[in-house]
């Protein structure tokens, strides 16, 4: 099996990293060690940051500052495509998950999450890695 081009971290995966869940910590460590890109959709990052205590915000900054971290902006054109994903699934309130699902599909990358049902509802064709 060859190395994947990258992995998308949704807001639940970002929160799992901050809370010290070892599987996510291992994924991040090996991604840095082998130069695998960690993709963080901006809406997912904002959602995670909104749920963190102020003292934990610096932990997520460590993640964002890694040399393999890529924060994907939600541009005007992409907003329309993410909105279409949300509307089609009847989940208009799930912007963070929608941005993660769209990013995973658009980049052809797996997405790490602890809410696989929601991501499957948004994009049944993406590869989902459920956090243990």
């Amino acid at each position, binding site marked *: 099996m060859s190395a994947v081009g990258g992995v998308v971290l949704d807001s639940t995966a970002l929160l799992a990293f901050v809370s*010290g869940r070892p*599987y996510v910590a*291992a*994924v991040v*460590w*090996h991604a*840095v*060690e*082998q130069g695998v890109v960690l993709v963080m959709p901006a809406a997912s990052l904002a959602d995670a940051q909104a749920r963190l205590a102020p003292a934990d915000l610096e932990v997520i900054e460590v993640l964002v500052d890694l*040399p393999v971290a890529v924060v994907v902006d939600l541009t005007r054109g992409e907003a329309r495509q993410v909105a279409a994903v949300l509307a089609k699934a009847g989940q208009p309130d799930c912007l963070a998950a929608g941005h993660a699902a769209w990013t995973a599909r658009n980049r052809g990358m797996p997405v790490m999450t602890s809410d696989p049902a929601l991501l499957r509802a948004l994009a049944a064709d993406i590869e989902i890695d459920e956090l243990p």
Partner: protein
Amino acid sequence: MTLPVEQAQRLRRLAGEGDAASISAYVSKAVRAQLDKDAALDRLTRLYAERGVTLHAEHHARARHLLGLEGHDPQVPAS
């Protein structure tokens, strides 16, 4: 700085047959990338220690499977 002959030959080819400035830029870029990676791994190691994150063999194995890294030679951090 010394390099194995084979690496030096490949470096000369990649950097344009002995152009000193190109070789310096190439080596500088490689060294900076390695320094950035080492600094990031050091930061993660300290963060995990501070927060009591312990990585076991099954975490490493599953992570490496997800990333398609089986067969690569990792520097696995101490658990």
